[in-house]
């Protein structure tokens, strides 16, 4: 039963990744792309945690924690690049 629920959640988050990819490719604005990248990071964290439940190990929590930190830093860096690039120059 947990296996079926895990398969359902894998399909859901995989579809979410595809939606984010579509928004990245066709997004009319840079803010859309940043938002889609942030959502991709969140979906990947969920996939990693679910994969840890699938395998029954707690190894993947460190990986998802690292992905969360790197995703936050990259999002803030991208936004600050847009902000400073337009204001200072």
């Amino acid at each position: 039963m947990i296996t079926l629920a895990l398969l359902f959640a894998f399909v859901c988050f995989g579809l979410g990744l595809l939606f984010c990819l579509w928004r990245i490719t066709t997004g009319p604005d840079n803010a859309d792309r940043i938002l889609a990248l942030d959502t991709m990071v969140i979906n990947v964290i969920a996939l990693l945690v679910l994969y840890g439940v699938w395998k029954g190990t707690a190894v993947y929590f460190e990986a998802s924690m690292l992905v969360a930190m790197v995703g936050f830093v990259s999002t803030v860096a991208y936004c600050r690049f847009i902000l400073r690039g337009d204001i200072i120059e």
Partner: protein
Amino acid sequence: MPGYAEILVSAFIVLGGLFGLVGSFGLIKLRDTMQRLHGPTKATTLGIGSVLIASMTYFYLIKGHVSFHELLITLFLFLTAPITANFIAKAYITRHIREQDLPATSSDYGWSVYDDPPGKETEEG
């Protein structure tokens, strides 16, 4: 006893998957960038909260040991999600809205996208 645990964990996993799917679907469904901020930053945060609750319940009730990593991830994500949304909104305002189109703030300072607070050398954000 394991039956209830399996049902609980499965329900939380399915709920998380649905919330994640709705959050990502809102990213392609909503029309405007400012509207699109709503979908992922709320629904996906709920989805990942459900997934982490499911993981904690799974490791406690079925594997039999308590793990606190999920609480760390939850704390980190719930702390950083508003900051991320704020930065994306500021990036959008910088690119698309002129300063004279914004309504006046009710304090002495202007909008933080355009004005630094007086008396400080702090940068944006």
